[in-house]
Protein backbone atom coordinates (compact mmCIF):
# COMPACT_ATOMS: atom_id res chain seq x y z
CA UNK A 1 0.00 0.00 0.00
CA UNK A 2 1.24 3.49 -0.81
CA UNK A 3 0.39 6.79 0.87
CA UNK A 4 1.55 10.35 0.44
CA UNK A 5 3.05 12.07 3.45
CA UNK A 6 0.81 15.10 3.95
CA UNK A 7 3.00 18.00 4.92
CA UNK A 8 2.41 21.75 5.19
CA UNK A 9 4.73 22.19 2.25
CA UNK A 10 2.73 19.74 0.16
CA UNK A 11 -0.61 21.37 1.00
CA UNK A 12 0.66 24.87 0.26
CA UNK A 13 2.49 23.89 -2.87
CA UNK A 14 -0.67 22.16 -4.08
CA UNK A 15 -2.81 25.20 -3.30
CA UNK A 16 -0.31 27.42 -5.16
CA UNK A 17 -1.61 25.86 -8.37
CA UNK A 18 -4.93 27.70 -7.90
CA UNK A 19 -4.67 31.26 -9.20
CA UNK A 20 -6.81 34.36 -8.94
CA UNK A 21 -7.16 34.98 -12.70
CA UNK A 22 -7.70 38.75 -12.37
CA UNK A 23 -4.60 39.41 -10.29
CA UNK A 24 -2.57 36.62 -11.88
CA UNK A 25 -1.21 35.36 -8.57
CA UNK A 26 -1.77 32.11 -6.71
CA UNK A 27 -4.08 32.11 -3.68
CA UNK A 28 -1.37 31.20 -1.16
CA UNK A 29 0.95 34.09 -2.04
CA UNK A 30 -2.11 36.35 -2.25
CA UNK A 31 -2.71 35.55 1.43
CA UNK A 32 -6.20 34.17 0.85
CA UNK A 33 -5.64 30.97 2.85
CA UNK A 34 -6.24 31.74 6.52
CA UNK A 35 -5.95 28.28 8.04
CA UNK A 36 -6.40 24.60 7.40
CA UNK A 37 -6.75 21.52 9.53
CA UNK A 38 -6.48 17.83 8.66
CA UNK A 39 -8.19 15.13 10.68
CA UNK A 40 -9.21 11.60 9.76
CA UNK A 41 -9.01 12.12 6.02
CA UNK A 42 -10.90 15.43 6.11
CA UNK A 43 -9.14 18.66 5.20
CA UNK A 44 -10.90 21.83 6.32
CA UNK A 45 -9.71 25.06 4.70
CA UNK A 46 -10.67 28.52 5.90
CA UNK A 47 -10.02 31.16 3.29
CA UNK A 48 -11.14 34.54 2.02
CA UNK A 49 -11.30 36.37 -1.30
CA UNK A 50 -9.94 39.75 -2.30
CA UNK A 51 -13.35 41.43 -2.29
CA UNK A 52 -16.82 40.52 -1.03
CA UNK A 53 -19.08 39.85 -4.00
CA UNK A 54 -16.08 38.60 -5.97
CA UNK A 55 -17.59 36.89 -9.05
CA UNK A 56 -14.88 34.22 -8.87
CA UNK A 57 -16.11 33.23 -5.41
CA UNK A 58 -17.53 29.80 -6.24
CA UNK A 59 -14.94 28.98 -8.90
CA UNK A 60 -11.94 29.60 -6.66
CA UNK A 61 -13.44 27.82 -3.67
CA UNK A 62 -14.40 24.90 -5.90
CA UNK A 63 -10.88 24.91 -7.33
CA UNK A 64 -9.41 24.63 -3.83
CA UNK A 65 -11.63 21.65 -3.17
CA UNK A 66 -10.75 19.97 -6.47
CA UNK A 67 -7.02 20.33 -6.10
CA UNK A 68 -6.88 19.18 -2.49
CA UNK A 69 -8.92 16.09 -3.30
CA UNK A 70 -6.05 14.99 -5.58
CA UNK A 71 -3.83 14.51 -2.52
CA UNK A 72 -3.46 10.96 -1.29
CA UNK A 73 -5.09 10.45 2.08
CA UNK A 74 -7.54 13.32 1.62
CA UNK A 75 -11.05 11.91 1.28
CA UNK A 76 -13.06 15.00 2.02
CA UNK A 77 -12.44 18.73 1.72
CA UNK A 78 -14.49 21.47 3.31
CA UNK A 79 -13.87 25.04 2.21
CA UNK A 80 -15.18 27.89 4.31
CA UNK A 81 -15.05 31.37 2.81
CA UNK A 82 -14.97 34.07 5.48
CA UNK A 83 -14.86 37.87 5.35
CA UNK A 84 -13.55 38.45 8.84
CA UNK A 85 -10.79 39.49 8.94
CA UNK A 86 -11.16 41.15 5.55
CA UNK A 87 -8.37 40.56 3.08
CA UNK A 88 -5.79 43.30 2.67
CA UNK A 89 -2.74 43.45 0.36
CA UNK A 90 -0.51 43.47 3.47
CA UNK A 91 -1.42 39.78 3.85
CA UNK A 92 0.38 38.92 0.61
CA UNK A 93 3.79 37.31 0.67
CA UNK A 94 6.74 39.15 -0.83
CA UNK A 95 6.57 36.76 -3.82
CA UNK A 96 2.89 37.54 -4.28
CA UNK A 97 3.52 41.28 -4.16
CA UNK A 98 6.18 41.00 -6.81
CA UNK A 99 3.90 38.87 -9.03
CA UNK A 100 0.96 41.27 -8.72
CA UNK A 101 2.93 44.53 -8.74
CA UNK A 102 1.80 45.46 -5.25
CA UNK A 103 3.80 47.87 -3.11
CA UNK A 104 5.67 46.64 -0.04
CA UNK A 105 4.42 47.34 3.48
Amino acid sequence: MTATLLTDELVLETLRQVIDPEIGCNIVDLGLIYRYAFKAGKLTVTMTLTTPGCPMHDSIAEGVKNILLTLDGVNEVEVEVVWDPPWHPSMMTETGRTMAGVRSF
Partner: protein
Amino acid sequence: MMEAILPKSAVIESKPAPQKLVRSAATPNLAGMQAAAVRLPLCFVLTGVLSLLVSGAVLLVQPDLLAMYHYTPHFIAVTHLFVLGFICSIIMGAMYQLVPVTLETQLFSNTLVLFQFVAHVIGFVGMVWAFWNFNMAMVGVFGSVLTLGVGLFILNLACTLAKVKRWNTIKFGITSALIWLSATVAAGLFVTASNFWTSIAFQLLAAMHAHAHIGVIGVFVMMIVTVSYKLVPMFTLSELQSERRAWCSVALINVGLVGIFITVLFQEPFKPLFALVTISGFILYGWEMVAILHARNRRVLDWGMKYFLTSIGLLVPLAILALALTWSGLPVNAVTMQLESVYGLLGLFGLVGFAILGMLYKIVPFLVWFHSYSRHIGRAKVPALPDMYSVPLQVAGYWSFLAGLVGLSVATVWSHAAGIRWGGGLLMLSLAIFALNMGKMLTHFVRPKVEPFAKKPNLLEKTL
Protein backbone atom coordinates in the same frame (compact mmCIF):
# COMPACT_ATOMS: atom_id res chain seq x y z
CA MET B 1 -3.98 15.86 13.36
CA MET B 2 -2.32 18.58 11.31
CA GLU B 3 -3.27 22.24 11.67
CA ALA B 4 -1.82 25.44 10.33
CA ILE B 5 -2.63 29.14 10.35
CA LEU B 6 -1.61 31.19 7.35
CA PRO B 7 -0.21 33.61 6.49
CA LYS B 8 2.07 34.52 9.39
CA SER B 9 0.65 38.01 9.65
CA ALA B 10 -0.16 39.77 12.88
CA VAL B 11 -3.64 40.54 11.59
CA ILE B 12 -4.57 36.89 11.30
CA GLU B 13 -2.82 35.55 14.35
CA SER B 14 -4.36 38.15 16.66
CA LYS B 15 -7.89 37.11 15.67
CA PRO B 16 -9.74 34.09 16.99
CA ALA B 17 -11.20 31.57 14.55
CA PRO B 18 -13.80 33.37 12.49
CA GLN B 19 -17.33 32.91 13.76
CA LYS B 20 -19.44 34.96 11.40
CA LEU B 21 -20.10 35.50 7.72
CA VAL B 22 -19.00 31.99 6.97
CA ARG B 23 -20.17 30.53 3.70
CA SER B 24 -19.45 27.01 2.63
CA ALA B 25 -18.23 26.68 -0.91
CA ALA B 26 -19.70 24.08 -3.18
CA THR B 27 -22.28 24.04 -5.84
CA PRO B 28 -22.26 20.75 -7.72
CA ASN B 29 -23.86 22.11 -10.92
CA LEU B 30 -21.76 25.26 -10.85
CA ALA B 31 -20.57 25.07 -14.43
CA GLY B 32 -24.07 24.84 -15.89
CA MET B 33 -25.39 27.73 -13.81
CA GLN B 34 -22.43 29.90 -14.67
CA ALA B 35 -22.64 29.17 -18.37
CA ALA B 36 -26.27 30.36 -18.50
CA ALA B 37 -25.47 33.50 -16.52
CA VAL B 38 -22.49 34.34 -18.70
CA ARG B 39 -23.80 33.62 -22.19
CA LEU B 40 -26.46 36.34 -22.25
CA PRO B 41 -24.24 39.23 -21.08
CA LEU B 42 -21.76 38.02 -23.70
CA CYS B 43 -24.50 38.18 -26.39
CA PHE B 44 -25.12 41.83 -25.44
CA VAL B 45 -21.40 42.57 -25.60
CA LEU B 46 -20.97 40.94 -29.03
CA THR B 47 -24.03 42.80 -30.37
CA GLY B 48 -22.45 46.00 -29.10
CA VAL B 49 -19.08 45.35 -30.71
CA LEU B 50 -20.75 44.49 -34.04
CA SER B 51 -22.78 47.74 -33.92
CA LEU B 52 -19.62 49.69 -33.15
CA LEU B 53 -17.84 48.25 -36.18
CA VAL B 54 -20.81 48.94 -38.47
CA SER B 55 -21.24 52.54 -37.23
CA GLY B 56 -17.49 53.13 -37.66
CA ALA B 57 -17.63 51.70 -41.19
CA VAL B 58 -20.58 53.97 -42.11
CA LEU B 59 -18.65 57.04 -40.95
CA LEU B 60 -15.66 55.91 -42.97
CA VAL B 61 -17.76 55.51 -46.12
CA GLN B 62 -19.76 58.71 -45.52
CA PRO B 63 -17.43 61.15 -43.68
CA ASP B 64 -19.58 64.06 -44.85
CA LEU B 65 -22.08 63.04 -42.15
CA LEU B 66 -19.80 64.70 -39.60
CA ALA B 67 -18.96 67.63 -41.86
CA MET B 68 -22.54 68.92 -41.88
CA TYR B 69 -25.05 69.84 -39.20
CA HIS B 70 -26.20 66.88 -37.16
CA TYR B 71 -29.98 66.96 -37.72
CA THR B 72 -30.13 64.71 -40.79
CA PRO B 73 -31.80 61.27 -41.11
CA HIS B 74 -28.56 59.38 -41.79
CA PHE B 75 -26.71 61.11 -38.96
CA ILE B 76 -29.54 60.35 -36.53
CA ALA B 77 -29.61 56.72 -37.77
CA VAL B 78 -25.84 56.28 -37.20
CA THR B 79 -26.09 58.02 -33.82
CA HIS B 80 -28.81 55.59 -32.74
CA LEU B 81 -26.81 52.63 -34.08
CA PHE B 82 -23.88 53.82 -31.99
CA VAL B 83 -25.92 54.77 -28.92
CA LEU B 84 -28.47 51.96 -28.85
CA GLY B 85 -26.52 49.26 -30.68
CA PHE B 86 -23.08 49.81 -29.22
CA ILE B 87 -23.32 51.76 -25.96
CA CYS B 88 -26.70 50.50 -24.71
CA SER B 89 -25.99 46.87 -25.60
CA ILE B 90 -22.62 46.94 -23.83
CA ILE B 91 -23.87 48.89 -20.82
CA MET B 92 -26.88 46.61 -20.40
CA GLY B 93 -24.80 43.43 -20.76
CA ALA B 94 -22.20 44.84 -18.40
CA MET B 95 -24.82 45.90 -15.87
CA TYR B 96 -26.26 42.40 -15.71
CA GLN B 97 -22.77 41.26 -14.81
CA LEU B 98 -21.56 44.18 -12.70
CA VAL B 99 -24.60 45.18 -10.64
CA PRO B 100 -24.63 41.88 -8.73
CA VAL B 101 -20.86 42.21 -8.22
CA THR B 102 -20.93 45.83 -7.06
CA LEU B 103 -23.94 45.29 -4.78
CA GLU B 104 -22.79 41.84 -3.65
CA THR B 105 -26.05 40.11 -4.53
CA GLN B 106 -27.61 37.87 -7.22
CA LEU B 107 -29.37 39.07 -10.38
CA PHE B 108 -33.17 38.88 -9.99
CA SER B 109 -33.89 36.89 -13.21
CA ASN B 110 -31.87 35.44 -16.08
CA THR B 111 -35.06 34.69 -18.06
CA LEU B 112 -35.92 38.40 -18.20
CA VAL B 113 -32.45 39.01 -19.64
CA LEU B 114 -33.23 36.71 -22.58
CA PHE B 115 -36.57 38.43 -23.34
CA GLN B 116 -34.94 41.82 -23.06
CA PHE B 117 -32.16 40.86 -25.43
CA VAL B 118 -34.65 39.84 -28.14
CA ALA B 119 -36.72 43.04 -27.72
CA HIS B 120 -33.57 45.18 -27.64
CA VAL B 121 -32.11 43.79 -30.87
CA ILE B 122 -35.42 43.95 -32.81
CA GLY B 123 -36.06 47.44 -31.42
CA PHE B 124 -32.74 49.10 -32.14
CA VAL B 125 -32.14 47.48 -35.57
CA GLY B 126 -35.65 48.51 -36.63
CA MET B 127 -35.19 52.04 -35.31
CA VAL B 128 -31.90 52.53 -37.16
CA TRP B 129 -33.52 51.32 -40.37
CA ALA B 130 -36.53 53.62 -39.82
CA PHE B 131 -34.36 56.67 -39.05
CA TRP B 132 -32.21 56.02 -42.13
CA ASN B 133 -35.37 56.14 -44.27
CA PHE B 134 -36.87 58.86 -42.05
CA ASN B 135 -40.01 56.81 -41.51
CA MET B 136 -41.12 58.24 -38.18
CA ALA B 137 -44.16 55.97 -37.91
CA MET B 138 -41.86 52.93 -37.94
CA VAL B 139 -39.49 54.67 -35.53
CA GLY B 140 -42.47 54.75 -33.16
CA VAL B 141 -43.25 51.06 -33.72
CA PHE B 142 -39.69 49.82 -33.20
CA GLY B 143 -39.15 52.38 -30.44
CA SER B 144 -42.06 50.75 -28.59
CA VAL B 145 -40.43 47.31 -28.93
CA LEU B 146 -37.20 48.79 -27.59
CA THR B 147 -39.16 50.41 -24.75
CA LEU B 148 -40.58 47.01 -23.82
CA GLY B 149 -37.02 45.71 -23.56
CA VAL B 150 -35.91 48.70 -21.52
CA GLY B 151 -38.88 48.10 -19.22
CA LEU B 152 -37.70 44.52 -18.63
CA PHE B 153 -34.15 45.76 -18.01
CA ILE B 154 -35.36 48.31 -15.45
CA LEU B 155 -37.65 45.76 -13.78
CA ASN B 156 -34.85 43.19 -13.49
CA LEU B 157 -32.35 45.65 -12.05
CA ALA B 158 -34.90 47.35 -9.79
CA CYS B 159 -35.82 43.96 -8.28
CA THR B 160 -32.09 43.22 -7.88
CA LEU B 161 -31.58 46.58 -6.15
CA ALA B 162 -34.56 45.91 -3.88
CA LYS B 163 -32.74 42.87 -2.48
CA VAL B 164 -30.05 45.20 -1.12
CA LYS B 165 -31.43 46.79 2.03
CA ARG B 166 -28.66 49.29 2.79
CA TRP B 167 -28.40 52.47 0.72
CA ASN B 168 -24.91 53.31 -0.42
CA THR B 169 -23.44 55.39 -3.26
CA ILE B 170 -23.62 52.49 -5.70
CA LYS B 171 -27.28 51.75 -5.05
CA PHE B 172 -28.03 55.49 -5.22
CA GLY B 173 -26.16 55.87 -8.53
CA ILE B 174 -27.67 52.82 -10.21
CA THR B 175 -31.17 53.79 -9.07
CA SER B 176 -30.58 57.28 -10.49
CA ALA B 177 -29.40 55.83 -13.80
CA LEU B 178 -32.51 53.63 -14.04
CA ILE B 179 -34.77 56.63 -13.40
CA TRP B 180 -32.91 58.62 -16.07
CA LEU B 181 -33.23 55.68 -18.45
CA SER B 182 -37.01 55.70 -18.00
CA ALA B 183 -37.04 59.46 -18.56
CA THR B 184 -34.83 59.16 -21.66
CA VAL B 185 -37.04 56.55 -23.29
CA ALA B 186 -40.19 58.53 -22.42
CA ALA B 187 -38.62 61.70 -23.85
CA GLY B 188 -37.53 59.84 -27.00
CA LEU B 189 -41.04 58.50 -27.62
CA PHE B 190 -42.44 61.96 -26.89
CA VAL B 191 -40.12 63.56 -29.45
CA THR B 192 -41.09 60.90 -32.02
CA ALA B 193 -44.81 61.38 -31.36
CA SER B 194 -44.53 65.17 -31.49
CA ASN B 195 -43.57 64.90 -35.19
CA PHE B 196 -47.24 64.15 -35.82
CA TRP B 197 -48.65 66.94 -33.67
CA THR B 198 -49.68 70.28 -35.11
CA SER B 199 -48.58 72.46 -32.21
CA ILE B 200 -46.03 71.86 -29.48
CA ALA B 201 -44.68 74.10 -26.71
CA PHE B 202 -41.00 73.57 -27.59
CA GLN B 203 -38.65 73.26 -30.53
CA LEU B 204 -38.02 69.73 -31.78
CA LEU B 205 -34.26 70.28 -31.90
CA ALA B 206 -34.25 71.51 -28.29
CA ALA B 207 -36.24 68.43 -27.25
CA MET B 208 -33.76 66.20 -29.07
CA HIS B 209 -30.85 67.88 -27.25
CA ALA B 210 -32.61 67.54 -23.88
CA HIS B 211 -33.31 63.86 -24.65
CA ALA B 212 -29.64 63.29 -25.59
CA HIS B 213 -28.33 64.96 -22.41
CA ILE B 214 -30.37 62.92 -19.98
CA GLY B 215 -29.54 59.76 -21.95
CA VAL B 216 -25.79 60.30 -22.13
CA ILE B 217 -25.15 61.95 -18.77
CA GLY B 218 -28.02 60.50 -16.76
CA VAL B 219 -27.74 56.91 -17.96
CA PHE B 220 -24.33 56.21 -19.49
CA VAL B 221 -22.08 58.55 -17.53
CA MET B 222 -24.01 57.89 -14.30
CA MET B 223 -23.51 54.13 -14.75
CA ILE B 224 -19.80 54.65 -15.49
CA VAL B 225 -19.35 56.92 -12.45
CA THR B 226 -21.24 54.56 -10.16
CA VAL B 227 -19.61 51.27 -11.07
CA SER B 228 -16.17 52.88 -11.07
CA TYR B 229 -16.60 53.62 -7.35
CA LYS B 230 -16.47 49.83 -6.87
CA LEU B 231 -14.36 48.65 -9.80
CA VAL B 232 -11.46 51.14 -9.69
CA PRO B 233 -10.67 50.28 -6.04
CA MET B 234 -11.14 46.58 -6.86
CA PHE B 235 -8.73 46.58 -9.83
CA THR B 236 -6.13 48.84 -8.23
CA LEU B 237 -6.37 47.20 -4.77
CA SER B 238 -7.49 50.42 -3.14
CA GLU B 239 -10.53 51.61 -1.21
CA LEU B 240 -13.20 54.26 -1.56
CA GLN B 241 -11.72 57.21 0.31
CA SER B 242 -14.86 59.21 1.12
CA GLU B 243 -18.36 57.75 0.89
CA ARG B 244 -19.76 61.23 1.53
CA ARG B 245 -17.82 62.77 -1.36
CA ALA B 246 -18.94 59.96 -3.67
CA TRP B 247 -22.58 60.36 -2.60
CA CYS B 248 -22.43 64.16 -3.11
CA SER B 249 -20.99 63.72 -6.61
CA VAL B 250 -23.95 61.54 -7.66
CA ALA B 251 -26.44 63.94 -6.00
CA LEU B 252 -24.95 67.02 -7.73
CA ILE B 253 -24.97 65.32 -11.14
CA ASN B 254 -28.65 64.45 -10.60
CA VAL B 255 -29.65 67.97 -9.50
CA GLY B 256 -27.70 69.60 -12.31
CA LEU B 257 -29.19 67.26 -14.88
CA VAL B 258 -32.78 68.02 -13.87
CA GLY B 259 -31.99 71.70 -14.43
CA ILE B 260 -30.20 71.02 -17.72
CA PHE B 261 -33.16 69.03 -19.05
CA ILE B 262 -35.64 71.81 -18.28
CA THR B 263 -33.47 74.71 -19.44
CA VAL B 264 -32.39 72.97 -22.64
CA LEU B 265 -35.94 71.88 -23.47
CA PHE B 266 -37.48 75.32 -22.94
CA GLN B 267 -34.31 77.22 -24.01
CA GLU B 268 -34.17 79.17 -20.78
CA PRO B 269 -31.19 81.32 -19.76
CA PHE B 270 -30.13 79.30 -16.67
CA LYS B 271 -28.29 76.62 -18.66
CA PRO B 272 -24.79 77.70 -17.47
CA LEU B 273 -25.90 77.56 -13.83
CA PHE B 274 -27.08 73.96 -14.06
CA ALA B 275 -24.10 73.03 -16.22
CA LEU B 276 -21.93 74.31 -13.35
CA VAL B 277 -23.86 72.24 -10.80
CA THR B 278 -23.32 69.09 -12.92
CA ILE B 279 -19.67 69.94 -13.47
CA SER B 280 -19.19 70.38 -9.71
CA GLY B 281 -20.49 66.79 -9.33
CA PHE B 282 -17.86 65.65 -11.83
CA ILE B 283 -15.17 67.62 -9.99
CA LEU B 284 -16.04 65.73 -6.78
CA TYR B 285 -15.97 62.49 -8.77
CA GLY B 286 -12.53 63.32 -10.20
CA TRP B 287 -11.30 64.25 -6.71
CA GLU B 288 -12.45 60.89 -5.34
CA MET B 289 -10.85 59.00 -8.24
CA VAL B 290 -7.52 60.77 -7.64
CA ALA B 291 -7.76 59.93 -3.92
CA ILE B 292 -8.53 56.26 -4.70
CA LEU B 293 -5.60 56.04 -7.12
CA HIS B 294 -3.29 57.79 -4.68
CA ALA B 295 -4.11 55.18 -2.02
CA ARG B 296 -3.80 52.21 -4.37
CA ASN B 297 -1.63 49.23 -3.47
CA ARG B 298 -1.17 48.03 -7.03
CA ARG B 299 1.53 50.29 -8.42
CA VAL B 300 1.24 49.47 -12.10
CA LEU B 301 -2.04 50.35 -13.83
CA ASP B 302 -2.98 47.91 -16.58
CA TRP B 303 -4.01 49.24 -20.00
CA GLY B 304 -7.70 48.52 -19.43
CA MET B 305 -7.52 50.95 -16.50
CA LYS B 306 -5.55 53.44 -18.61
CA TYR B 307 -8.29 53.42 -21.27
CA PHE B 308 -10.88 54.01 -18.56
CA LEU B 309 -8.99 56.76 -16.73
CA THR B 310 -8.18 58.57 -20.00
CA SER B 311 -11.87 58.60 -20.85
CA ILE B 312 -12.61 60.18 -17.48
CA GLY B 313 -9.94 62.81 -18.23
CA LEU B 314 -12.03 63.81 -21.26
CA LEU B 315 -14.53 65.27 -18.79
CA VAL B 316 -12.23 68.34 -18.63
CA PRO B 317 -12.53 69.42 -22.31
CA LEU B 318 -16.18 68.36 -22.26
CA ALA B 319 -16.91 70.61 -19.26
CA ILE B 320 -15.17 73.56 -20.97
CA LEU B 321 -17.12 72.96 -24.17
CA ALA B 322 -20.38 72.60 -22.26
CA LEU B 323 -19.87 75.94 -20.52
CA ALA B 324 -18.91 77.64 -23.78
CA LEU B 325 -21.94 76.25 -25.61
CA THR B 326 -24.35 77.36 -22.88
CA TRP B 327 -22.99 80.93 -22.93
CA SER B 328 -25.74 83.17 -24.28
CA GLY B 329 -23.28 85.50 -26.04
CA LEU B 330 -21.93 82.74 -28.27
CA PRO B 331 -22.41 83.72 -31.93
CA VAL B 332 -24.57 81.32 -33.93
CA ASN B 333 -22.38 80.43 -36.90
CA ALA B 334 -21.01 77.36 -38.68
CA VAL B 335 -18.13 76.87 -36.22
CA THR B 336 -20.51 76.99 -33.22
CA MET B 337 -22.69 74.36 -34.83
CA GLN B 338 -19.66 72.18 -35.49
CA LEU B 339 -18.57 72.67 -31.86
CA GLU B 340 -21.89 71.10 -30.86
CA SER B 341 -20.98 68.08 -33.01
CA VAL B 342 -17.53 67.91 -31.34
CA TYR B 343 -19.23 68.08 -27.93
CA GLY B 344 -21.38 65.08 -28.89
CA LEU B 345 -18.42 63.28 -30.46
CA LEU B 346 -16.20 63.72 -27.40
CA GLY B 347 -19.05 62.75 -25.08
CA LEU B 348 -20.16 59.65 -26.94
CA PHE B 349 -17.07 58.36 -28.77
CA GLY B 350 -14.56 59.82 -26.31
CA LEU B 351 -15.90 59.64 -22.78
CA VAL B 352 -18.43 56.81 -23.07
CA GLY B 353 -16.83 54.87 -25.96
CA PHE B 354 -13.29 54.89 -24.59
CA ALA B 355 -14.51 54.00 -21.09
CA ILE B 356 -16.46 51.09 -22.53
CA LEU B 357 -13.46 49.81 -24.50
CA GLY B 358 -11.43 49.88 -21.27
CA MET B 359 -14.20 48.07 -19.40
CA LEU B 360 -14.49 45.48 -22.18
CA TYR B 361 -10.86 44.52 -21.60
CA LYS B 362 -11.99 43.54 -18.12
CA ILE B 363 -15.48 42.21 -18.80
CA VAL B 364 -15.00 40.05 -21.92
CA PRO B 365 -11.95 38.08 -20.65
CA PHE B 366 -13.82 37.55 -17.40
CA LEU B 367 -17.01 36.30 -19.10
CA VAL B 368 -15.06 34.01 -21.43
CA TRP B 369 -12.84 32.77 -18.59
CA PHE B 370 -15.89 32.09 -16.48
CA HIS B 371 -17.52 30.12 -19.27
CA SER B 372 -14.45 28.15 -20.33
CA TYR B 373 -12.26 27.74 -17.27
CA SER B 374 -14.25 27.98 -14.04
CA ARG B 375 -14.95 24.25 -14.06
CA HIS B 376 -11.26 23.46 -14.67
CA ILE B 377 -9.83 25.49 -11.82
CA GLY B 378 -8.03 23.19 -9.41
CA ARG B 379 -8.14 20.41 -11.98
CA ALA B 380 -5.80 21.82 -14.61
CA LYS B 381 -3.62 24.82 -15.38
CA VAL B 382 -5.81 27.68 -16.67
CA PRO B 383 -4.71 31.06 -18.05
CA ALA B 384 -4.99 34.35 -16.15
CA LEU B 385 -7.22 37.03 -17.68
CA PRO B 386 -4.40 39.13 -19.23
CA ASP B 387 -3.09 35.97 -20.96
CA MET B 388 -6.26 35.87 -23.06
CA TYR B 389 -5.44 38.88 -25.27
CA SER B 390 -2.43 40.72 -26.66
CA VAL B 391 -1.22 43.64 -24.52
CA PRO B 392 0.90 45.18 -27.38
CA LEU B 393 -2.27 45.23 -29.53
CA GLN B 394 -4.14 46.81 -26.63
CA VAL B 395 -1.49 49.55 -26.40
CA ALA B 396 -1.62 50.14 -30.18
CA GLY B 397 -5.41 50.38 -29.92
CA TYR B 398 -5.12 52.96 -27.13
CA TRP B 399 -2.86 55.33 -29.06
CA SER B 400 -4.68 54.98 -32.38
CA PHE B 401 -8.00 55.69 -30.65
CA LEU B 402 -6.63 58.77 -28.91
CA ALA B 403 -4.96 60.10 -32.09
CA GLY B 404 -8.12 59.38 -34.10
CA LEU B 405 -10.36 61.12 -31.58
CA VAL B 406 -8.19 64.26 -31.48
CA GLY B 407 -7.87 64.33 -35.30
CA LEU B 408 -11.58 63.76 -35.82
CA SER B 409 -12.52 66.47 -33.31
CA VAL B 410 -10.24 69.09 -34.89
CA ALA B 411 -11.36 68.16 -38.41
CA THR B 412 -15.03 68.29 -37.38
CA VAL B 413 -14.67 71.84 -36.02
CA TRP B 414 -13.40 73.02 -39.41
CA SER B 415 -15.68 70.66 -41.43
CA HIS B 416 -12.55 69.27 -43.07
CA ALA B 417 -13.73 66.14 -44.93
CA ALA B 418 -10.21 64.72 -45.55
CA GLY B 419 -9.28 65.26 -41.88
CA ILE B 420 -12.49 63.57 -40.80
CA ARG B 421 -11.64 60.64 -43.06
CA TRP B 422 -8.13 60.36 -41.52
CA GLY B 423 -9.40 60.72 -37.95
CA GLY B 424 -12.19 58.24 -38.64
CA GLY B 425 -9.64 55.93 -40.26
CA LEU B 426 -7.48 55.96 -37.12
CA LEU B 427 -10.53 55.26 -34.99
CA MET B 428 -11.43 52.39 -37.30
CA LEU B 429 -7.86 51.09 -37.03
CA SER B 430 -8.24 51.15 -33.26
CA LEU B 431 -11.57 49.33 -33.49
CA ALA B 432 -10.07 46.76 -35.89
CA ILE B 433 -7.27 46.17 -33.36
CA PHE B 434 -9.87 45.80 -30.65
CA ALA B 435 -11.83 43.34 -32.82
CA LEU B 436 -8.62 41.34 -33.31
CA ASN B 437 -8.09 41.21 -29.56
CA MET B 438 -11.75 40.27 -29.07
CA GLY B 439 -11.16 37.43 -31.51
CA LYS B 440 -8.19 36.26 -29.42
CA MET B 441 -10.36 36.32 -26.29
CA LEU B 442 -13.17 34.45 -28.01
CA THR B 443 -10.87 31.66 -29.21
CA HIS B 444 -10.76 30.68 -25.52
CA PHE B 445 -14.55 30.40 -25.64
CA VAL B 446 -14.44 28.01 -28.59
CA ARG B 447 -11.19 26.20 -27.77
CA PRO B 448 -10.17 26.50 -24.10
CA LYS B 449 -6.43 26.21 -23.50
CA VAL B 450 -6.22 23.85 -20.54
CA GLU B 451 -2.90 22.27 -19.61
CA PRO B 452 -2.16 19.60 -17.03
CA PHE B 453 -0.43 20.74 -13.83
CA ALA B 454 3.32 20.29 -13.70
CA LYS B 455 4.31 17.43 -11.38
CA LYS B 456 6.50 18.27 -8.41
CA PRO B 457 8.42 15.03 -7.73
CA ASN B 458 10.21 16.38 -4.67
CA LEU B 459 6.90 17.00 -2.95
CA LEU B 460 4.98 13.99 -4.12
CA GLU B 461 7.37 11.35 -2.84
CA LYS B 462 5.50 8.28 -1.81
CA THR B 463 6.14 6.54 1.44
CA LEU B 464 5.56 2.86 1.96
